[in-house]
């Protein structure tokens, strides 16, 4: 998941790919966030198990006879919401840590970075499962774990960017002028590292969506009967021989979302990098 993006990004610059990805990602996000407003009770039994599509229940019912459309409308908010929250937390954490490590002397910064890097060795899903054992049945554990997994990479990028800026002439000038560190940080450093940080947070969001969806599938976070697209895939797989839609609807939505977010983040990172070079 934390694959290098070196060089590959610039090829996907076909505009139509980006526009399609933006529309799809926006559409699924809107459905996930606004869906609960239009849906009935997601935990209420309305019919027999695994009934096919019918007028009151266009996507059929699941194994407990619950309306699948209602559950689909309710189940996206937690996936998208946790991913957004974790990315915000990781970006904030990575920003603070990265600027701090990038400002101190090189040797010390390198040493501290190594400590942060230790977290990168553990496979992300393993860390997710560990925290879920400590804080069972809690969405907060998923949020914290995903933020923790994505923070080291962001810290590394921010630190590298800060390090470049900290040695720039205009920062030297500002320092010689007697500007305070907060002033330098706000006026000189932050604007200069904004682009890479923004690009990075987009790429981390991709990882975050991947992890929150997987957490749902593994049964982590708020337990049943709460609706969650990831968990719905697990719940309804057994009934796929009887009726496909309860399994297929959340699975297709998640595939559309992960692919479009991925292409979009890649394209945006590329645009920001090219804009930064010009």
């Amino acid at each position, binding site marked *: 998941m934390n694959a290098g993006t070196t060089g590959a990004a610039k090829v996907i610059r076909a505009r139509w790919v980006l526009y399609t990805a933006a529309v799809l990602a926006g559409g699924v996000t809107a459905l996930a966030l606004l869906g609960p407003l239009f849906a009935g009770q997601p935990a209420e039994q309305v019919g027999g198990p695994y009934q096919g599509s019918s007028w009151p229940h266009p996507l059929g019912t699941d194994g407990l006879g619950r309306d699948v459309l209602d559950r689909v409308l309710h189940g996206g908010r937690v996936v998208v919401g946790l991913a957004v929250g974790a990315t915000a937390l990781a970006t904030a954490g990575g920003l603070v840590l990265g600027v701090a490590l990038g400002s101190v002397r090189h040797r010390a910064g390198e040493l501290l970075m190594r400590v942060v890097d230790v977290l990168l060795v553990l496979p*992300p899903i393993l860390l997710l499962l560990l925290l879920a054992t400590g804080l069972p049945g809690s969405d907060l554990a998923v949020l914290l774990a995903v933020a923790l997994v994505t923070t080291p990479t962001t810290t590394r990028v921010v630190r590298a960017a800060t390090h470049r800026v900290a040695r720039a002439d205009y920062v030297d000038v500002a320092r010689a002028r007697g500007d305070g560190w907060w002033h330098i940080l706000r006026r000189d450093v932050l604007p200069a590292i904004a682009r890479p940080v923004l690009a990075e947070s987009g790429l981390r969001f991709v990882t975050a969506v991947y992890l929150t969806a997987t957490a749902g599938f593994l049964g982590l976070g708020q337990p049943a009967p709460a609706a969650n697209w990831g968990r719905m895939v697990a719940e309804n797989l057994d009934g796929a021989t009887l009726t496909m839609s309860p399994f297929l609807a959340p699975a297709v939505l998640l595939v559309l979302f992960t692919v479009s977010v991925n292409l979009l983040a890649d394209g945006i990172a590329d645009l920001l990098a090219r804009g930064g070079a010009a």
Partner: protein
Amino acid sequence: MIWRRLLLTRLAGMVATLAVLSVVIFAGTELLPGDAVSAVAGQHASPAQRAEVRTQLGLDRPAPQRYLEWIGGALHGDLGPSYTGGRPVTDVITERLGNSVLLALAVYLLLIPLSLTLGTIAGLGSASGRRGRRADRVILVATVSMLGVPEFLTGGLLLAVFAVWLGWLPAVSIAPIGGSVLDDPQALLLPVASLLVVSLGAATRLVRAGVANVAGSPYLEAARLAGVRGPKLVLRHVLPAALGPATQVISIGLGTIVGGAVVVETLFDYPGIGNELQSAVAGRDVPLVQGIALTLAAVTLVALLLGDIVARALDPATGGRP
């Protein structure tokens, strides 16, 4: 001599990393408020029963002491008894680890040639004419798209198509009692395919980046002018230079495959260590979770070290010297 020094520093670094990770694993599962006692004694246990279970599990002693005992036992290959059934954690791990390693090896066996082929086509295409660039773009969009799709979705969709809809392949891979998963190799197909789809994206991109770097270089132009063409050009001049990044495939893919194995093994009910970890987490079996996590961390570190050594040995820039 140089190799020996390199190995020694790397091994020391590995042990230090594993020590830090063991603290992370222990703290993550034991110090957080999730209480193992309720998992064992049940939610409606009386305070007296809870106290008794607490003493039984040794949870009344201070955490640092328990950590030292745990890690001391681990050094002797003893990870304590699991909560459910009291089976030694080490036994559970040795029974299941082999199946997971088998799964990972099968994935690598396909991943390496596939990513090398696709990455070379894309990388060479990026530096040549219209058709080459088109191939490059198609391969990239396809692999980037697959990169962020969770394993349970690719696996679930493969399952829906091949096991449910077409009925060609078994939906679960339960090994016969006393037998091995190899008795029914068909059952391996879907788990391997699901893991492959996700790791192929990352691996192909790495190889492509390495090849694209070489493809535009004067060095390759010189070889071309000297009359080296076709497969020979690729095998003799492109691949060796791209092998450095390509060996990273092994390391990069590792986190994906180890993490993905938990998901895929759960999905297909494959009798591996990842499946065991998932059910241990669901059952709040803390010693089992800790033992498996420590094992997976150690396996990951060893594999990273091996990948690093191979990368250094193959790197033409150093001529095989570290």
